[in-house]
């Protein structure tokens, strides 16, 4: 019988193999002896491990966030009105909305003015000039007249000569309040001063407990409300218009239709009669509710995005839009674009949009009095969007741009064509062949003839002194 035993002799091991004819049996060595004869360093290692574990077994989780800090600022009416003018070209610092007409780009510099860019060669856009307009956030161009807001006023500029742009008309005190990037402003009706807020981006780090730390809330809802008021049989104004309008993004608050400029501020729709484009006149005002964000004209309808829902207005009588229905949703911000009988609404959290939803809603609007949700798709932080069917472009803020094939409304998320995530995307304008995109990093122009792989044609970067990127 092969017996293998192993034991100590004089602190040396003696190994007896199986084929040895003489196997010297030694009694089984006790566990105690075995443990004792283990080398000291082993015990040391164990003690060290235990000691180190006391202080070292602590999780370390650091949360980094960038947020906006608001500081109040006071501006007098004179400061605002007299500070208007044309300047030399500036770099993009805090770009807002974009607008295009006849190969020219108008890029808003938030609260500062408008950059005029010659984009007739999309591969090499050229900055032409800068119009200084305090408190500017939106613009629209009809023929050769540029309409821009300047805090509480509406200003019309003659842009027939882009190198010599001059203001030709100003309507005072038509906008009582507004907001830029979450910081709201209002006019003090007694003094005429504007109380505004300056925004600083602050970065901070905290040690967290490595958990998600959220309490489930049940207050989010997605109900539908509809308004079956019958429409008045007012005839449309008809006639062929010899006017040309530019194109705005989905985040726009200005829209042109027929002989009117439609502007939305936080609670109302203010119309301007622009029958004579150089002489805008204040028109009707329609109360909309609260938290109004964007306006999108489609055919003879107006789609208005607000924090409580998407409003659909009938614009057959352009001087008196009438509400048809409201598609309500959770309290978030939402731009909207429309194609055919579907409306695409993005909902996002953050800033003054207090909800926590981030999604894309596809709404069936074949019956405008009864908009119906087709499907909701979760998104990261969607901002503006653009549709050139079947291409659907969604700006995901700091998370970039996503391109979808929207031909199947039930499976948009499964048809993601491309995700460019190394840019900041705020809003887009699809122009058939090229896509104009604006974000915090700059202005980008893409060729989307192959929607699976957008080709960057040109870029105007943001050059911000000492900012948090």
């Amino acid at each position, binding site marked *: 019988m092969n017996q*293998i*035993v*192993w034991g100590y002799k004089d602190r040396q*091991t003696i*190994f007896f193999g199986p084929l040895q004819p003489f196997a010297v049996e030694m009694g089984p*060595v006790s*566990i105690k002896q*075995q443990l004792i004869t*283990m080398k000291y360093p*082993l015990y040391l*290692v*164990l003690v060290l*491990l235990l000691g*180190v*574990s006391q202080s*070292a*077994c*602590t*999780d*370390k*989780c*650091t*949360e*980094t*966030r*960038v*947020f*906006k800090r608001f500081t109040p600022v006071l501006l007098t009416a004179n400061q605002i009105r007299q500070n208007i003018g044309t300047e030399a070209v500036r770099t993009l610092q805090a770009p807002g909305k974009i607008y295009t007409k006849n190969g020219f780009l108008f890029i808003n510099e938030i609260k500062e003015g408008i950059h005029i860019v010659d984009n007739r060669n999309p591969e090499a856009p050229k900055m032409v000039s800068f119009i200084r307009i305090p408190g500017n956030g939106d613009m629209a161009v009809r023929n050769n007249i540029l309409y821009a807001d300047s805090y509480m006023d509406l200003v019309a500029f003659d842009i027939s000569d882009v190198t010599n742009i001059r203001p030709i008309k100003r309507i005072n005190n038509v906008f009582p309040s507004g907001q830029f990037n*979450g910081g709201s402003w209002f006019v003090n009706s007694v003094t005429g001063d504007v109380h505004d807020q300056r925004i600083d*981006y602050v970065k901070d780090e*905290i*040690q*967290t*407990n*490595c*958990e*998600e730390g*959220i309490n489930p809330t049940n207050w989010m809802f997605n109900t539908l409300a509809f308004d079956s008021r019958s429409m008045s049989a007012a005839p449309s104004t008809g006639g062929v218009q010899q006017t040309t309008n530019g194109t705005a993004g989905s985040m726009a608050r200005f829209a042109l239709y027929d002989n009117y400029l439609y502007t939305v501020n936080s609670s109302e729709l203010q119309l301007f009669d622009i029958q004579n484009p150089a002489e805008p006149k204040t028109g009707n005002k329609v109360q909309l509710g609260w938290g109004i964000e964007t306006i999108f004209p489609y055919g003879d309808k107006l789609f208005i995005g607000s924090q409580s829902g998407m409003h659909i207005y009938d614009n057959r009588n352009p001087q008196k839009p009438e509400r048809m229905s409201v598609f309500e949703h959770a309290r978030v911000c939402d731009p909207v674009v429309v194609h055919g009988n579907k409306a695409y609404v993005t909902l996002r*959290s*953050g*800033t*003054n949009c*207090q909800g*926590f939803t*981030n999604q894309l809603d596809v709404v069936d609007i074949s019956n405008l009095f009864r908009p119906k949700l087709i499907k909701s798709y*979760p998104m*990261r*932080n969607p901002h503006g969007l653009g549709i050139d069917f079947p291409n659907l472009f969604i700006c995901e*803020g*700091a998370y970039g741009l996503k391109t979808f094939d929207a031909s199947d409304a039930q499976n948009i998320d499964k048809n993601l064509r491309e995700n460019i995530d190394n840019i900041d995307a705020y809003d887009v304008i699809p122009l058939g062949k090229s896509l104009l995109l604006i974000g915090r990093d700059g202005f980008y122009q893409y060729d989307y003839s192959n929607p699976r792989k957008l080709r960057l044609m040109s870029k105007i970067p943001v050059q911000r002194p000492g900012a948090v990127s």
Partner: protein
Amino acid sequence: MLSLTSEAQTLPKRLPFVNYTEVGGLFGRVISGTQNNKVVENKTNLTVQTLNGVKLTKRLAVGALVGLDWYNSALLMPVGAGLRFQITRPSDRNVSVFASTDAGYGLTWLNKSSTGYFVKGGLMLNPGIGLRLGKPGRGCLLLTLSYKHQQAQVEKPLRWNEVMRYETRQYNRLAIRLGISI
């Protein structure tokens, strides 16, 4: 005299298969908040792991490992490689001590996070020491003590007035595990 025939090529020696399968707990703490307002919480999480490989020498075994660490806010699956080195001399004794070193990458394949949270895995390091009880060559019981370091990154949803929010995590735990090994 060795006659060389075409069949007498030396085949690579079949290396014996080893398996170390363990289950246990990850113990540690986390300190959050600010300097003057500290909050300390104790953490206990489940860990399982299996390492399958070969015994290279009498003392050294190497293998590929797959595990599951179920942290409170992330279910990570470390995959990687590990070494098992026997410290006590190889013999017939019923007890032996070994040192282990594992390294890998934590995958988030099985992880599910709340809306707006996106977890990305990271490096996993796990040096330790263990005890094998049982006859060598047969199935043995394992008792291991190790230090597990796991990194992860999480994107968090934005709240009011935030434009960016993410978290870098480093889990540092004491792993005490029981297992079997062959």
